[in-house]
Protein backbone atom coordinates (compact mmCIF):
# COMPACT_ATOMS: atom_id res chain seq x y z
CA UNK A 1 0.00 0.00 0.00
CA UNK A 2 1.41 3.38 -0.96
CA UNK A 3 1.72 5.92 1.82
CA UNK A 4 -0.09 9.13 0.93
CA UNK A 5 1.69 12.25 2.12
CA UNK A 6 -0.81 15.01 2.70
CA UNK A 7 0.25 18.51 1.81
CA UNK A 8 -1.01 21.93 2.91
CA UNK A 9 -3.32 23.50 0.37
CA UNK A 10 -4.56 26.96 -0.65
CA UNK A 11 -7.76 28.20 -2.27
CA UNK A 12 -5.92 28.91 -5.50
CA UNK A 13 -4.58 25.36 -5.57
CA UNK A 14 -8.11 23.97 -5.07
CA UNK A 15 -9.29 26.15 -7.95
CA UNK A 16 -6.44 24.80 -10.06
CA UNK A 17 -7.49 21.23 -9.22
CA UNK A 18 -11.08 21.98 -10.24
CA UNK A 19 -9.92 23.61 -13.48
CA UNK A 20 -7.71 20.63 -14.34
CA UNK A 21 -9.49 17.55 -13.02
CA UNK A 22 -13.11 18.72 -12.83
CA UNK A 23 -15.63 18.86 -10.05
CA UNK A 24 -15.34 15.28 -8.79
CA UNK A 25 -12.83 15.13 -5.89
CA UNK A 26 -12.18 11.42 -6.52
CA UNK A 27 -10.25 12.52 -9.62
CA UNK A 28 -8.00 14.87 -7.67
CA UNK A 29 -4.50 13.78 -6.58
CA UNK A 30 -4.94 11.64 -3.44
CA UNK A 31 -2.31 13.49 -1.43
CA UNK A 32 -4.25 16.76 -1.82
CA UNK A 33 -7.80 15.49 -1.85
CA UNK A 34 -8.72 15.55 1.81
CA UNK A 35 -7.40 19.05 2.48
CA UNK A 36 -8.93 20.33 -0.75
CA UNK A 37 -12.38 18.98 0.07
CA UNK A 38 -12.21 20.51 3.56
CA UNK A 39 -11.33 23.89 2.08
CA UNK A 40 -14.02 23.55 -0.59
CA UNK A 41 -16.80 22.93 1.91
CA UNK A 42 -16.24 26.28 3.58
CA UNK A 43 -15.77 28.41 0.49
CA UNK A 44 -18.79 29.32 -1.62
CA UNK A 45 -16.73 30.50 -4.58
CA UNK A 46 -14.86 27.20 -4.75
CA UNK A 47 -18.11 25.27 -4.30
CA UNK A 48 -19.69 27.17 -7.18
CA UNK A 49 -16.66 26.48 -9.37
CA UNK A 50 -16.85 22.77 -8.49
CA UNK A 51 -20.56 22.68 -9.40
CA UNK A 52 -19.84 24.36 -12.72
CA UNK A 53 -17.03 21.88 -13.43
CA UNK A 54 -19.32 18.96 -12.53
CA UNK A 55 -21.77 20.16 -15.17
CA UNK A 56 -19.04 19.97 -17.77
CA UNK A 57 -18.12 16.49 -16.48
CA UNK A 58 -21.73 15.37 -16.99
CA UNK A 59 -21.79 16.83 -20.50
CA UNK A 60 -18.56 15.03 -21.40
CA UNK A 61 -20.05 11.80 -20.11
CA UNK A 62 -22.67 12.01 -22.87
CA UNK A 63 -20.02 10.58 -25.18
CA UNK A 64 -20.78 6.86 -25.08
CA UNK A 65 -18.38 4.18 -23.99
CA UNK A 66 -16.75 2.66 -27.08
CA UNK A 67 -17.87 -0.93 -27.49
CA UNK A 68 -15.31 -3.66 -26.92
CA UNK A 69 -14.57 -5.82 -29.93
CA UNK A 70 -14.17 -9.55 -29.14
CA UNK A 71 -12.89 -10.22 -32.67
CA UNK A 72 -10.13 -7.69 -32.14
CA UNK A 73 -9.08 -9.50 -28.98
CA UNK A 74 -8.79 -12.74 -30.93
CA UNK A 75 -6.66 -10.99 -33.54
CA UNK A 76 -4.45 -9.47 -30.87
CA UNK A 77 -3.96 -12.80 -29.14
CA UNK A 78 -2.77 -14.28 -32.43
CA UNK A 79 0.08 -11.78 -32.70
CA UNK A 80 2.70 -14.11 -31.15
CA UNK A 81 1.83 -16.84 -33.69
CA UNK A 82 1.90 -14.47 -36.62
CA UNK A 83 4.97 -12.49 -35.65
CA UNK A 84 8.55 -12.98 -36.65
CA UNK A 85 8.03 -14.09 -40.25
CA UNK A 86 8.11 -12.41 -43.62
CA UNK A 87 4.82 -10.72 -42.75
CA UNK A 88 6.24 -8.72 -39.85
CA UNK A 89 9.50 -8.04 -41.60
CA UNK A 90 7.59 -6.38 -44.42
CA UNK A 91 5.27 -4.59 -41.99
CA UNK A 92 8.40 -3.21 -40.34
CA UNK A 93 9.89 -2.09 -43.66
CA UNK A 94 6.75 -0.25 -44.72
CA UNK A 95 5.72 0.93 -41.26
CA UNK A 96 2.15 -0.14 -41.90
CA UNK A 97 -0.54 -2.08 -40.06
CA UNK A 98 -1.59 -5.65 -40.68
CA UNK A 99 -4.06 -5.24 -43.57
CA UNK A 100 -1.66 -3.07 -45.53
CA UNK A 101 1.23 -5.33 -44.58
CA UNK A 102 -0.69 -8.27 -46.01
CA UNK A 103 -1.03 -6.54 -49.36
CA UNK A 104 2.58 -5.39 -49.28
CA UNK A 105 3.73 -8.90 -48.34
CA UNK A 106 1.76 -10.37 -51.25
CA UNK A 107 3.24 -7.81 -53.63
CA UNK A 108 6.80 -8.35 -52.44
CA UNK A 109 6.34 -12.12 -52.52
CA UNK A 110 5.09 -11.85 -56.10
CA UNK A 111 8.07 -9.77 -57.16
CA UNK A 112 10.49 -12.16 -55.45
CA UNK A 113 8.93 -15.22 -57.07
CA UNK A 114 8.91 -13.54 -60.46
CA UNK A 115 12.53 -12.47 -60.15
CA UNK A 116 13.76 -15.87 -59.03
CA UNK A 117 11.72 -17.92 -61.50
CA UNK A 118 11.38 -16.23 -64.91
CA UNK A 119 9.63 -19.32 -66.34
CA UNK A 120 6.54 -18.75 -64.22
CA UNK A 121 3.57 -17.89 -66.47
CA UNK A 122 2.10 -14.44 -66.26
CA UNK A 123 -1.66 -14.12 -65.90
CA UNK A 124 -3.29 -13.90 -69.35
CA UNK A 125 -0.26 -15.34 -71.12
CA UNK A 126 0.46 -18.92 -72.02
CA UNK A 127 3.86 -20.51 -71.92
CA UNK A 128 5.22 -22.20 -75.03
CA UNK A 129 4.80 -25.63 -73.46
CA UNK A 130 1.15 -24.98 -72.69
CA UNK A 131 0.40 -23.79 -76.21
CA UNK A 132 2.07 -26.85 -77.74
CA UNK A 133 0.08 -29.10 -75.47
CA UNK A 134 -3.14 -27.33 -76.40
CA UNK A 135 -2.33 -27.58 -80.10
CA UNK A 136 -1.71 -31.31 -79.90
CA UNK A 137 -4.98 -31.76 -78.07
CA UNK A 138 -6.79 -29.69 -80.65
CA UNK A 139 -5.27 -31.66 -83.47
CA UNK A 140 -6.31 -34.93 -82.00
CA UNK A 141 -9.88 -33.81 -81.45
CA UNK A 142 -10.22 -31.60 -84.50
CA UNK A 143 -13.29 -33.24 -85.93
CA UNK A 144 -15.20 -33.47 -82.72
CA UNK A 145 -14.29 -29.95 -81.75
CA UNK A 146 -15.11 -28.53 -85.17
CA UNK A 147 -18.45 -30.19 -85.36
CA UNK A 148 -19.43 -29.22 -81.86
CA UNK A 149 -18.23 -25.67 -82.34
CA UNK A 150 -19.95 -25.31 -85.66
CA UNK A 151 -23.15 -26.61 -84.29
CA UNK A 152 -22.94 -24.31 -81.33
CA UNK A 153 -22.68 -21.16 -83.45
CA UNK A 154 -25.27 -22.23 -85.99
CA UNK A 155 -23.12 -23.62 -88.82
CA UNK A 156 -23.87 -26.86 -90.52
CA UNK A 157 -21.15 -29.44 -91.05
CA UNK A 158 -21.12 -28.66 -94.76
CA UNK A 159 -20.13 -25.05 -94.24
CA UNK A 160 -16.51 -24.10 -94.56
CA UNK A 161 -14.95 -22.19 -91.74
Amino acid at each position, binding site marked *: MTEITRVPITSSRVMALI*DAYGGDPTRWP*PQEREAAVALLSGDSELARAADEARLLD*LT*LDALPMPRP*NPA*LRVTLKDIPERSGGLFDLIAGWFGVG*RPAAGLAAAAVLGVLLGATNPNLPLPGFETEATVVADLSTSTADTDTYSLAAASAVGFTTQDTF
Partner: protein
Amino acid sequence: MTDRTQEDPDAALMPRIADGDAAAFRLLVDRHADRLLGFAQRMLGDRATAEDVVQDTYLSLWRKAGDWTPQARVSTWLYRVARNAALDRLRRLKPTVDPEDVILIDSGPAPDRRLDDAATANSVRAALDALPERQRAAIVMVHYEGLSGADASAALDISVEALESLLARGRRSLRQALADQRVELLGEVR
Protein backbone atom coordinates in the same frame (compact mmCIF):
# COMPACT_ATOMS: atom_id res chain seq x y z
CA MET B 1 10.51 7.97 -10.47
CA THR B 2 10.12 4.91 -8.29
CA ASP B 3 10.40 1.22 -9.10
CA ARG B 4 6.83 0.15 -9.73
CA THR B 5 7.33 -3.59 -10.02
CA GLN B 6 6.07 -4.03 -6.46
CA GLU B 7 2.76 -2.27 -7.08
CA ASP B 8 2.15 -2.97 -10.77
CA PRO B 9 0.52 -6.37 -11.34
CA ASP B 10 1.58 -6.28 -15.00
CA ALA B 11 5.27 -5.70 -14.33
CA ALA B 12 6.13 -9.36 -13.78
CA LEU B 13 4.67 -10.22 -17.19
CA MET B 14 7.01 -8.01 -19.18
CA PRO B 15 10.20 -10.10 -18.84
CA ARG B 16 8.16 -13.17 -19.74
CA ILE B 17 6.81 -11.46 -22.86
CA ALA B 18 10.32 -10.37 -23.78
CA ASP B 19 11.26 -14.08 -23.60
CA GLY B 20 8.46 -14.95 -26.02
CA ASP B 21 5.82 -16.11 -23.53
CA ALA B 22 2.57 -15.86 -25.52
CA ALA B 23 0.40 -16.64 -22.48
CA ALA B 24 1.78 -13.62 -20.62
CA PHE B 25 1.17 -11.49 -23.71
CA ARG B 26 -2.44 -12.66 -23.89
CA LEU B 27 -2.99 -11.73 -20.26
CA LEU B 28 -2.10 -8.14 -21.13
CA VAL B 29 -4.53 -8.29 -24.05
CA ASP B 30 -7.29 -9.32 -21.65
CA ARG B 31 -6.36 -6.66 -19.12
CA HIS B 32 -5.89 -3.61 -21.32
CA ALA B 33 -7.16 -4.06 -24.89
CA ASP B 34 -10.66 -2.71 -24.26
CA ARG B 35 -9.42 0.40 -22.48
CA LEU B 36 -6.81 1.05 -25.14
CA LEU B 37 -9.49 0.71 -27.79
CA GLY B 38 -11.64 3.21 -25.89
CA PHE B 39 -8.73 5.59 -25.63
CA ALA B 40 -7.85 5.29 -29.31
CA GLN B 41 -11.44 5.66 -30.45
CA ARG B 42 -11.95 8.77 -28.35
CA MET B 43 -8.71 10.20 -29.62
CA LEU B 44 -9.44 9.47 -33.27
CA GLY B 45 -13.22 9.40 -33.55
CA ASP B 46 -12.88 6.52 -35.99
CA ARG B 47 -13.46 2.90 -35.00
CA ALA B 48 -11.47 1.11 -37.70
CA THR B 49 -8.42 3.33 -37.26
CA ALA B 50 -8.65 2.96 -33.49
CA GLU B 51 -8.53 -0.82 -33.92
CA ASP B 52 -5.43 -0.45 -36.12
CA VAL B 53 -3.84 1.66 -33.39
CA VAL B 54 -4.52 -1.03 -30.78
CA GLN B 55 -3.01 -3.65 -33.09
CA ASP B 56 0.06 -1.48 -33.59
CA THR B 57 0.31 -1.04 -29.83
CA TYR B 58 0.24 -4.77 -29.10
CA LEU B 59 2.61 -5.52 -31.96
CA SER B 60 5.03 -3.07 -30.32
CA LEU B 61 4.47 -4.77 -26.99
CA TRP B 62 5.34 -8.17 -28.47
CA ARG B 63 8.41 -6.87 -30.26
CA LYS B 64 9.71 -4.39 -27.71
CA ALA B 65 8.72 -5.74 -24.29
CA GLY B 66 12.44 -6.03 -23.57
CA ASP B 67 12.75 -2.24 -23.86
CA TRP B 68 10.32 -1.61 -21.01
CA THR B 69 11.86 -0.39 -17.76
CA PRO B 70 9.99 -0.56 -14.46
CA GLN B 71 9.96 3.20 -14.02
CA ALA B 72 6.42 3.52 -15.34
CA ARG B 73 3.42 1.23 -15.05
CA VAL B 74 2.96 -1.16 -17.96
CA SER B 75 -0.47 0.33 -18.63
CA THR B 76 1.09 3.78 -18.76
CA TRP B 77 3.67 2.52 -21.23
CA LEU B 78 0.90 1.00 -23.37
CA TYR B 79 -1.02 4.29 -23.34
CA ARG B 80 2.13 6.08 -24.43
CA VAL B 81 2.65 3.68 -27.35
CA ALA B 82 -1.04 3.94 -28.28
CA ARG B 83 -0.97 7.71 -28.10
CA ASN B 84 2.06 7.87 -30.39
CA ALA B 85 0.38 5.49 -32.83
CA ALA B 86 -2.81 7.58 -32.68
CA LEU B 87 -0.81 10.75 -33.22
CA ASP B 88 0.72 9.19 -36.29
CA ARG B 89 -2.74 8.36 -37.63
CA LEU B 90 -4.17 11.77 -36.70
CA ARG B 91 -1.70 13.40 -39.03
CA ARG B 92 -3.24 11.44 -41.88
CA LEU B 93 -6.87 11.20 -40.79
CA LYS B 94 -9.73 13.62 -40.73
CA PRO B 95 -11.77 12.53 -37.71
CA THR B 96 -15.34 11.48 -38.31
CA VAL B 97 -18.10 9.99 -36.22
CA ASP B 98 -19.47 6.66 -37.32
CA PRO B 99 -23.12 6.58 -36.19
CA GLU B 100 -22.83 2.80 -35.87
CA ASP B 101 -20.35 3.33 -33.08
CA VAL B 102 -22.58 5.62 -31.07
CA ILE B 103 -24.44 3.58 -28.49
CA LEU B 104 -26.72 4.98 -25.89
CA ILE B 105 -25.85 3.96 -22.37
CA ASP B 106 -29.50 3.88 -21.31
CA SER B 107 -32.01 2.52 -23.81
CA GLY B 108 -34.99 3.54 -21.64
CA PRO B 109 -35.77 7.15 -22.59
CA ALA B 110 -38.22 8.14 -25.30
CA PRO B 111 -36.98 8.47 -28.91
CA ASP B 112 -36.77 12.27 -28.80
CA ARG B 113 -34.62 12.05 -25.69
CA ARG B 114 -32.39 9.51 -27.44
CA LEU B 115 -31.96 11.95 -30.30
CA ASP B 116 -31.01 14.63 -27.78
CA ASP B 117 -28.46 12.29 -26.23
CA ALA B 118 -27.01 11.41 -29.63
CA ALA B 119 -26.87 15.08 -30.56
CA THR B 120 -25.05 15.89 -27.33
CA ALA B 121 -22.66 13.00 -27.92
CA ASN B 122 -21.94 14.31 -31.40
CA SER B 123 -21.33 17.80 -30.00
CA VAL B 124 -18.93 16.40 -27.43
CA ARG B 125 -17.18 14.39 -30.15
CA ALA B 126 -16.84 17.49 -32.32
CA ALA B 127 -15.61 19.60 -29.40
CA LEU B 128 -13.00 16.97 -28.52
CA ASP B 129 -11.88 16.72 -32.13
CA ALA B 130 -11.40 20.48 -32.23
CA LEU B 131 -8.94 20.41 -29.32
CA PRO B 132 -5.20 20.40 -29.97
CA GLU B 133 -3.99 16.81 -29.83
CA ARG B 134 -2.10 17.12 -26.55
CA GLN B 135 -5.07 18.65 -24.76
CA ARG B 136 -7.34 15.97 -26.18
CA ALA B 137 -4.99 13.20 -25.08
CA ALA B 138 -4.85 14.67 -21.57
CA ILE B 139 -8.65 14.96 -21.32
CA VAL B 140 -9.25 11.46 -22.70
CA MET B 141 -6.70 9.88 -20.37
CA VAL B 142 -7.84 11.65 -17.21
CA HIS B 143 -11.57 12.15 -17.70
CA TYR B 144 -12.53 9.12 -19.78
CA GLU B 145 -9.87 6.56 -18.91
CA GLY B 146 -9.60 7.58 -15.27
CA LEU B 147 -5.81 7.77 -15.21
CA SER B 148 -4.31 9.66 -12.28
CA GLY B 149 -2.43 12.86 -12.97
CA ALA B 150 0.83 11.06 -12.27
CA ASP B 151 0.09 8.21 -14.71
CA ALA B 152 -1.28 10.49 -17.44
CA SER B 153 1.73 12.78 -17.20
CA ALA B 154 4.04 9.75 -17.45
CA ALA B 155 2.11 8.47 -20.48
CA LEU B 156 2.42 11.87 -22.14
CA ASP B 157 6.03 12.21 -21.02
CA ILE B 158 5.45 15.58 -19.35
CA SER B 159 5.41 16.91 -15.79
CA VAL B 160 2.24 16.84 -13.67
CA GLU B 161 2.20 20.64 -13.78
CA ALA B 162 2.29 20.59 -17.58
CA LEU B 163 -0.48 18.00 -17.62
CA GLU B 164 -2.67 20.14 -15.36
CA SER B 165 -2.10 23.10 -17.64
CA LEU B 166 -3.16 21.03 -20.67
CA LEU B 167 -6.23 19.77 -18.81
CA ALA B 168 -7.28 23.25 -17.67
CA ARG B 169 -6.91 24.73 -21.15
CA GLY B 170 -8.71 21.79 -22.71
CA ARG B 171 -11.60 21.96 -20.27
CA ARG B 172 -11.90 25.72 -20.82
CA SER B 173 -12.23 25.20 -24.57
CA LEU B 174 -14.73 22.39 -24.07
CA ARG B 175 -16.80 24.54 -21.70
CA GLN B 176 -17.05 27.23 -24.35
CA ALA B 177 -17.78 24.81 -27.18
CA LEU B 178 -20.42 22.94 -25.20
CA ALA B 179 -22.16 25.92 -23.60
CA ASP B 180 -25.49 25.08 -25.25
CA GLN B 181 -25.44 21.48 -24.08
CA ARG B 182 -24.58 22.54 -20.55
CA VAL B 183 -27.53 24.94 -20.46
CA GLU B 184 -29.85 22.09 -21.54
CA LEU B 185 -28.36 19.80 -18.95
CA LEU B 186 -28.78 22.48 -16.30
CA GLY B 187 -32.48 22.62 -17.13
CA GLU B 188 -32.80 18.85 -16.62
CA VAL B 189 -30.81 18.82 -13.39
CA ARG B 190 -32.93 21.59 -11.91
